[in-house]
Every structure is written in structure tokens, then in C-alpha cells.
């Protein structure tokens, strides 16, 4: 089985069978992670460059671990510590790294579309580890995997993404992936953070958490950027917490338990109260574990499919 595309740039337009193939493959690798020796050989001799043009801890570590678990050779940088800060263009940076015979590039970038651009100027396979407010496909895939693990299905479930949808690549990739697998998707956030025309993607838009909580199976709570143009999109963190903070008291209005997800890192007691984040229905740490397995699956399928 092979993926249709030789890059993973986003989930928009990805065929559902490709998503399922990645999730199934991730299932096998997930078992590997439970073994005493968590390393397998399929990417032996392959070289993978992790190019992070934006600060990231968990995604970078997750990719790095996935690459090492598959026995690949790994190199990488986070911008600031490389020639990027000297004003070299993305194209030149990437081509120089590729000249060292790299098979795949994993890139995180602050600019939407940067991985699409990159895939046109280098030969290596490109994996998008998050680009601007555009897509974060491996995050959405690990979210799908975690939902499937918990509910044994995705189709027919109601998942609500909560918070800053406007600036969220996690939200966009989740919407594409969840819709593709037949889930009902809604978003809930302040009107200032719901991008124009979002409903054309087939999602329901809510502005009041209490309206949506009774009918959801999963709340995927997005990180609110504390530094985000203070005062332009919402007045204060206090008001944000009062309006959109997910708390035990709010969740008590649900008729059935609501599964809580968060892509991290959490602002405790802002978008999520501590007791919910650490509560019995939180799968936040499962997401982190599954992320390694999902990234192993993506790396494996792209490396062996080409």
C-alpha cells in the first residue's frame, strides 16, 4: 500500500483511504512503542533533516524520536542557530541541506504555504510539521488516531474545536481530516477569531460553549496565544477564561462524558482548567504518545513508497 502523494503537505484533499492507511500503519508502530526495545530498522540508511523555522519543542522532539525509532539518520536545526538568521533564503538553505544527500525534509515554518513552495524547489520528500495558520497534518492525524483509539470509530462523532480558529493550523487540518472520515465538526470561539467563510467547509459555528457542550463527544481545546495582538481579538485572558474556558462546572451540563483533547502546550486555567486537563476524560498525554506512532507511520510510508 502506498500514499497517493510523495509529500505530506496537508490533509485538504487527501483521500480518506490514505488517511486510514496512515492510521492503520500507526497502529502497528504504536505496538512497537510498548515493547522493551522500541526501535525497528525500516529507515536504516535514510537521512532526514528537521528544519524548524519556528520554535517548537514537542513536535520537534516527537519527529526526532519517530525518526530514531525507525533507525533513520537525523540532522536538524531550529532557526536562530543556523544560517537562517544570516538572511539566507529558504530555497538556498534547503538546497544546501539537500546537497548533503538528504532523503526527506520535515519542516516547521511560520509562513503558510512554505512547505508547498519547498516541495517545488527540492527533490526530497517534504513533510509539513506546521506552516503558519495553514496546516499541521501530523497533529490532526494523531488527533484522529487518538479519537479512533478511544471510540473505535470517527464517523458519526461530534467534535468541537474550541478557541482561536483564525490563527490555528491545527483547527484547519482537523476539520479536513475529521470531515473526510465522516465526523460532525463544529467550532466554538469569539466572533473575532472565526475566519471568514469557515462554514463553507461544512462546520457549524458557535460562539457560546454552553450551546455546544450538550451534544459533543470531544472538545479539542486550542491554545490561546497570550501574546496575540493583545486586545485586538479579545479583551483579556480573564474574560477569555470566563467565556471560553473549559471547566468541570461547564462540562457538568453534558449528558455524557466529554473527551478532552489539547494540542499543547496548555495555558492552565485559561483555555482549560487544571482539573479538566488532568481529569479522567482527558486524553492529552495519549495524544503525545500517539504522535510518535503517527509520525513513524508517515515517515515510513513516504520513505518506502517513493
Amino acid at each position, binding site marked *: 500500500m502506498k500514499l497517493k502523494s510523495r509529500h505530506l503537505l496537508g490533509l*485538504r484533499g487527501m483521500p480518506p483511504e490514505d488517511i486510514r492507511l496512515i492510521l492503520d500503519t500507526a497502529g502497528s508502530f504504536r505496538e512497537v512503542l510498548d515493547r522493551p526495545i522500541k526501535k525497528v530498522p525500516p529507515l536504516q540508511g535514510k537521512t532526514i533533516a528537521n528544519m524548524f523555522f519556528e520554535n517548537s519543542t514537542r513536535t520537534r522532539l516527537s519527529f526526532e524520536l519517530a525518526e530514531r525509532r525507525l533507525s533513520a539518520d537525523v540532522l536538524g536545526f531550529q532557526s536562530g542557530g543556523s544560517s537562517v538568521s544570516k538572511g539566507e533564503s529558504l*530555497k538556498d538553505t534547503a538546497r544546501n541541506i539537500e546537497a548533503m544527500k538528504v532523503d526527506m525534509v520535515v519542516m516547521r515554518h511560520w509562513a503558510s504555504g512554505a512547505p508547498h513552495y519547498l516541495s517545488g524547489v527540492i527533490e526530497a520528500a517534504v513533510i509539513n510539521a506546521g506552516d503558519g495558520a495553514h496546516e499541521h497534518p501530523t497533529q490532526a492525524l494523531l488527533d484522529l488516531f487518538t479519537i479512533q483509539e478511544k471510540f473505535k470509530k470517527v464517523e458519526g462523532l461530534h467534535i468541537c474545536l474550541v478557541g482561536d480558529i483564525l490563527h490555528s493550523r491545527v483547527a484547519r487540518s482537523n476539520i479536513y481530516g475529521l470531515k473526510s472520515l465522516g465526523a460532525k465538526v463544529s467550532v466554538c470561539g469569539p466572533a473575532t477569531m472565526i475566519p471568514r467563510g469557515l462554514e463553507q467547509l461544512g462546520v457549524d459555528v458557535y460562539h457560546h460553549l454552553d450551546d455546544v457542550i450538550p451534544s459533543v463527544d470531544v472538545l479539542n481545546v486550542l491554545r490561546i496565544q497570550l501574546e496575540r495582538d493583545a486586545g485586538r481579538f479579545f479583551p483579556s485572558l480573564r474574560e477569555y477564561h470566563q467565556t471560553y474556558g473549559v471547566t468541570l462546572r461547564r462540562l457538568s451540563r453534558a449528558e455524557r462524558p466529554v473527551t478532552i483533547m489539547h494540542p499543547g502546550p496548555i495555558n492552565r486555567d485559561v483555555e482549560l482548567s487544571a482539573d479538566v486537563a488532568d481529569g479522567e476524560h482527558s486524553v492529552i498525554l495519549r495524544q503525545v504518545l500517539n504522535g510518535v506512532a503517527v509520525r513513524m507511520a508517515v515517515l515510513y510510508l513516504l520513505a518506502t513508497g517513493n
Partner: protein
Amino acid sequence: MNIERASNLILRNVRIVDPLSGVDKITSIHIVDGSIKAIGSSLSAAKGAVVRECEGMVAAPGFFDMHVHLREPGFEHKETVETGCMSAAAGGFTGVSCMPNTNPAIDDESVVRMIRAKARDAVGGLVDVHPIAAVSLGRKGERLAPLAELAAAGAVAFTDDGDPVHDAEIMRRALEYASMFNKPIIQHAQDMPMTRGGVMNEGFCSTELGLPGMPGAAEDVVIARDITLSGYTGGQYHVAHMSTGGAVELIRMAKSRGLRVTCEVTPHHFVLTDDAVRTFDTNTKMNPPLRSADDVAAILAGLKDGTIDVIATDHAPHSYDEKQVEYQAAPFGIIGLETAIGLTMTALVHKKVITIERMVQLLSVNPRAILHLPEIRVTEGSMANLTLFHPDEQWVVDPSRFYSRSRNTPFGGSSLKGRPVGAINNGVVFFHPHSAAS
């Protein structure tokens, strides 16, 4: 660039489209020493005359692009006065107005004089260059530039293009002051706080692409304010590169009230929508951005009903490397001089949105009238200032063959119907070597 003296030239069997004289007929034109000596279908081959068979071609009063960035002084790696004039001639334009966002800005008469001097030396002087100077010193929007001196040196209008005149007080005073010597203020209409960080039209496409948006409303609010100021001061106001349906509606209303308000649109804003950005091709990035299909429909309606006065290209050269970057990091702007006739013919005339006569008004008569430049007529005794184009020639845009120093166009590979063939002005003639018709 291969130019010749128009010393003794006959254009045979050419269709003259001259709206000011009310002429639309197929005939022959005899040009001697840069002037039209005779027009008539029975012109006998004059002694020593070079005869050009022009069957199927149109001869119109020379096209004038009132929105061109020549980039000189300061950005000569993108374009110079000379290469910009070559690109204009190749696109069929005998005149352009250049924008003041140079370095230094055109906010001092010395810069106006320098550009005009360089233009006289370029392409044998074929292309008239009428600089448009800055409204404010350094285009900073704080203090008025020396408008009277700039006008005396040859500036035909004032704008801070590239940036808006954001301060309502500066706009009000500029309109008042410039009206003393009958010059228009041209606005790049953009509310800056509403578009901070924006790189494309705000709408469904920007939502999907996760690119920061620039709402059409940010253009409309500035135009609405400026119309009020134009009405209050009586100053002449012109909207550059108008791109929204809301703006078309505002201009329509202002005109119905009899205000001194005009506007221009670019070919890319009536040909492309923001859907083109999905490729992340940085040659789809310009300011104002490509808008929605509804906006394009409103612009076509405005072109048809006369609300829109001018087609101008906003020719904005950038070097290859400058555009070979992430979309959000790329500079705004595309070049347009050499594709304007092809796009206008293909998207407007062949699709019966407008007639060829109206196209000549939009590309020649109206921009000159707005800038108070002399009328051009295709009549016996007039100086020959002509654009020659073939309405039906099919061609594929090949940016590597452009005369501009830059190549930043989204239209490379596009198949167009209608092509510039030549330009004649100031006693000089250029025939485009790539046109089959020439």
C-alpha cells in the same frame, strides 16, 4: 530594441479607432517626419515611403498607462526608466506615468527632472514619461511635499502610492492645495490597521490557506472618506487600482452626485480571483490583492457601464530572487505593461464586455484627460502618436522574452487573443519583432 525614424511611412489598410474624432474606419495613414500627412484609402505609394501592410490591425491614439513603477532612482535592479520605457513600447504604450515610491521618493523637483531627462534618452524618446510625485515628504504622510514646485517641474498628479494617504487632514489639505494648479490626488486606498500583516484578500480562500487577509472593506472605507473630502474641498480625486465591488458602488454614487472623482482598475483585477493564490505562487501577490469572483463581476459591470474610467497596469517589477521566497515574505506586485493589451482584448473585448472603441477610451483618452494631458487624435496634420495592435492575433505569454528587466507575472504560459504590434510617437516607430503581424 530596434527603433526607426518615422520619416516616411505608410500604414496600409489599418482600422483607425479614434473616439475623440468619432472615427472608426479602415484606411491608410501616411506619416512623414513624425506627423500624419495624409489619411485615405487611395494613398498612392509616395516616393521612398516604407509601406507596412496592416490588414486586420487597429491604429488608436497612443495608449497611456497612468500607473507604472519605473523603480528609478533606487531600485535599478528591478527596472530603470530605460527598461521600463522599452517594456511600455513593447506593450503598445506611447506614454506612462511613473509612481513616486522610489529612493529617494519623487518628492523633490530634481527627481522629476532627472526621470524626464532619462526618459527623453530612452527608446529614442518614443515613450512620454509624466512623473507622478509624492503627496507628502518622503511619502510619510506627515507633511505636504512641495506640490507647486513639483508641478512646475512636470509632475502631473500626486500620490503616496505604495502607501495610502492615511491621515484625513493631510488628504483634505492636499486636495485643496493641488486644486490651485488643477492636479489630481491619486489614492492607494488601504486602511492600514485593518490590513496589518495581510497578504491576500480576506475571504474563504484566505481562511483555507491560513494566510492573513486584507478585507475589501479596508479599501472601501478609505474611498468613502475621500469621496466626502473631495466633495467638501472640490479637489480632483482619483482612485488607483480599485479592486472591490464596494468601491465600484461608491464611485458610481460619487459620479451620480457630480463629484470630481475617477478611478482605474488593473487587468489582473478583472482577470484573476483570489483562487489563484492556492498555488502559493508569489506572482499572485499584489496590493490590493486579487479579490473574489463577486468583486470581479462588479468590476466588469463598472467597466461596461462607464463607472470605471481607466485601465492601468500597476506595473510593479521585482527581481527573480525577491519573488523566490515564502508567500508571506514576498514583495507585493506584478508587471503588466506587456500583457495589458492581450488581457484587455481577451477578457473584455472578445467576451463582449466592452467594445474596442471603449477600450481605447480606457487606455488612452481617459487617462490623458484625468491628468490634463493634451488630447491625441488620429487626423491629418496631427503628430503621429499611435498604438498599433492586432485584435485577433493569438499568442502565448513568454516572460523570458519581455523587455522589462523583471519577469514577475502570473500570466506566463497564458494564451491570449490580441497583441500589441507597434508604437509610434515623437517621430520614432517601434514594431514588435515577436508579433506575427509585424
